[in-house]
């Protein structure tokens, strides 16, 4: 499997990596809500939150520039929405919208880049998210790269046979997708049989149980208080 940069980051060994996924997710929610409900002195607040998240990323030994660049994936669409606000005569809202969505993406990235996805999903399951859905998500993530590569191969094969965009390929593209669908379906059947052969009990086992320790509670308290206090201080000052 090709390495995905996020996957590599999430296997690190910093104090933040060791925290319970539930604590991290709860802290993330608090941060997002504090940010989403803020209206006053937004640029100042955004600067402070950027420092907070940047500090957290450095603490977690996640490459800072890489994380900032990756969070910038939200920018194309966000800048468009910001421009719409600006043109609509509300530049402050446009700026706020761009700042908020960038910081939210960075916050999500901070959690996801310090928690392997299976652990994060397991944590969500323990707080009551439907297991069926989470298992589907887990399988989706596992096979995302496999099926994507298969599609990539099909595309290369088509291109190497001189199959360009000009040669009226709407039906051919539909055929290719249908083949991809059939292959994915067959692969799912194979996976299912292999799982049955290995006595799949209907749920995933994780190595080691998740335990919510004192350190996790302390982290959660600190991580939940920090953004709230920063916002209160800035709103008092501004």
């Amino acid at each position, binding site marked *: 499997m090709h390495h995905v940069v996020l996957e590599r980051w999430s296997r690190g060994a910093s104090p933040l990596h060791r925290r319970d996924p539930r604590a991290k997710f709860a802290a993330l929610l608090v941060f997002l809500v504090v940010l989403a409900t803020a*209206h006053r002195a937004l640029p100042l607040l955004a600067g402070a939150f950027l420092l907070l998240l940047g500090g957290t990323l450095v603490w977690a030994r996640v490459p800072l520039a890489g994380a900032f660049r990756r969070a910038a994936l939200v920018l194309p669409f966000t800048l468009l929405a910001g421009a719409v606000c600006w043109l609509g005569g509300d530049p402050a809202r446009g700026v706020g919208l761009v700042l908020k969505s960038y910081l939210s993406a960075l916050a*999500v990235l901070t959690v996801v880049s310090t928690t392997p996805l299976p652990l994060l999903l397991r944590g969500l399951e323990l707080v009551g998210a*439907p297991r069926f859905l989470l298992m*589907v998500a887990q399988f*989706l993530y596992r096979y995302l790269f496999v099926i994507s590569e298969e599609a990539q191969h099909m595309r290369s094969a088509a291109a190497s046979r001189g199959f360009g965009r000009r040669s009226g390929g709407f039906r051919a593209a*539909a055929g290719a997708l249908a083949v991809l669908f059939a292959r994915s379906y067959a692969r799912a059947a194979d996976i299912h049989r292999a799982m049955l052969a290995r006595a799949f009990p209907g749920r995933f086992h994780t190595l080691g149980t998740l335990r919510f320790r004192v350190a996790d509670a302390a982290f959660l308290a600190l991580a939940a208080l920090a953004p709230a206090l920063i916002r209160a201080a800035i709103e008092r000052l501004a």
Partner: protein
Amino acid sequence: MVAPAGFGSPGGTFLPLVLPCCVGVHIYDGFLSTPVWVAMDVAAAPAVGYMVRRAQRQFEESRIPLLGVMGAFVFAAQMINFPVGIGTSGHLVGGALLACTLGPAAAGVVLCAIIAIQALVFQDGGILALGPNLINMAILGVLAGYLPYYLWGGTPWRRVAIFAGGALSVMVSAIMALAELLISGVPMSRSVVGVSLTLFLVSALLEGAITLAVVQALEAIQPGFVRQPAAGRSFARGALGLAAVVLAAVGFLFASTAPDGIESLGHTTGMDHVRRLFTTPLAGYQLALAGEPWLRKTAAGLAGIAIVYGACLLIGRSVARRGRA
């Protein structure tokens, strides 16, 4: 409308692939006003729970790999370009195709998983905006995409139904997203709304054409992939139901663009000062009594969703009863 999200990384790039938001129009954290995302999150939780239960009843747990792999298929399908005209191409969005092959509940679950993975791993969509995105695409999008097929999938109008399903699924989720942005107070002039609606219409028609082409190709490979709905539902009743759903969505949009009656009333009568007294000192957003514009807007939004829900439910019930009779 389409946010490219690559695997760009400093060290080594993963596949040189671009993953545009594959299930339609994503809303990011920070786009919606607090009452709107809170209301949509609250509405999404039971809806997703219900859908998961239905899917679970239909697919025993051992079939989970199928749903996961089909979600991966929808992701990968972005890489197959469908040429349309000179230099432009589209790609499959997938809601209606999944509904025609796996059934609506399972398709909804697959789309939920896709939207969650996109928000977590690909920075495409937000966590607080998960509720709005799930309702727009995984619930209403799938229902709207399946409805025409459910009604006319067994009649000579089958091809039209598949086409309409693809188009409707994209159109309904796009209209919902647009309406939520408008309710949140994103200032959009009529021309901006018009241009977006035109773009949505074009991509909706494209999605209809792609869905139809793929379903036909699938049936050529193996007919068993595509579900066969019961034949001969009432045409008039179906058309009526479909019109109701479309009208509810469009009406929702128009309600969200309507001028703020109570707000202007407040300005003219000097009620503004009174209202300011009730705001909490704690936060920038107003957490005050009834009559606040956001409360009204949220109520309007929830009413809109309730109407769409109700329309779908009533049509479903009546059609089911007819089917049994």
